[in-house]
């Protein structure tokens, strides 16, 4: 129901305000263009599933280092793909402790920054922590199979390539997808009910 309300609110946005030539017969004083909503609201807290592109290890990064991710599953709003799979995204290491000499495991905390949709940055939130395995306590069993097997080689905390991380859209964004590249719709995002 909320989604329908939002959709209706978007339908009601005057097309002129979006800075796009009207597609239908919409001119001054005309009713809102109901045929094709030009703007799509990407609500705050919409989950975005991301995948780490390359491994991030505590022994190779310092706090503040940025790392790349990609959108793993397309974000759909009302049946339209708003953020396609493969769209690049970025995160940042907040804290990184290397593994110590006495079997202390490495620890890492990272935060998500934004999804780069064309020239548009969609801010995203999400925290991710990882820690290495303490070698003193556990003879670590190798996980079978593929990339995951690499995980136990060392004690440094890492974000593995291919690891899935869920982020959330950090603010309501009205997107204009009609142009060659997506951009923020000129009209402010409708108020949340």
């Amino acid at each position: 129901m909320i989604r329908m309300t939002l959709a209706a609110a978007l339908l009601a946005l005057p097309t002129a305000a979006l800075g796009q030539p009207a597609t239908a017969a919409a001119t001054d004083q005309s009713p809102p263009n109901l045929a094709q909503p030009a703007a799509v609201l990407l609500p705050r807290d919409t989950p975005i599933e991301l995948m780490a592109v390359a491994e991030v290890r505590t022994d190779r990064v310092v706090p503040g280092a940025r790392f790349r991710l990609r959108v793993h599953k397309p974000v759909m709003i009302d049946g339209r793909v708003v953020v396609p799979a493969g769209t690049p995204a970025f995160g940042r290491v907040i804290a990184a402790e290397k593994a110590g000499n006495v079997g202390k495991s490495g620890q890492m905390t990272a935060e998500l920054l934004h999804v780069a949709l064309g020239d548009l940055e969609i801010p995203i939130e999400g925290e991710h922590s990882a820690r290495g395995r303490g070698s003193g306590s556990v003879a670590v069993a190798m996980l079978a199979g593929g990339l995951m097997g690499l995980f136990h080689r060392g004690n440094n905390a890492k974000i593995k390539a291919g690891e899935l991380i869920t982020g959330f859209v950090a603010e309501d964004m009205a997107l204009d997808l009609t142009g060659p590249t997506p951009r923020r719709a000129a009209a402010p995002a409708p108020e949340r009910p």
Partner: protein
Amino acid sequence: MAGVAALMALAATADAGAPVTVPAGTPIQLETRLPLSSKTHVKGDKVLLRVSADLVVGGRLVIPAGTEAVGDVSDAQERGGFGTSGRLVVRPLYLVVGGRHVRLAGHTAERARPGAGTAIGVVVLTPLISGRSAQIAAGTPIEATTLRDVVLPAVEP
């Protein structure tokens, strides 16, 4: 005109379930929908959850039992070679009610920015008998809280 009519119709339905504010930190009872195991699940895997008890705020039903929720495996350790137990850490992420995403945290959630490696809002599931893989049966309760204030329409009973 059709648009105006549609908007009025939508407004009418919205009135039927006037919004209720669910404050941040409201506890929500969840349960797992499928069995989980540290043998088969790895970090990052999605975990299907379900709201197991109606959430009633101010006498009004806001989130009915059965509402779909999603978490992920934030840590998974296969059992070790010397009798160490497997371990699974599940972090509730969000639930979906009325097409709206409501973010969740585990009941141990901390608001402050965590230090390195601090697990936030997670539920650690370990087996009772050591040396086993962590096996989590379907229907295992998980307690979560809402991450921030959210305004939701009340659900008609």
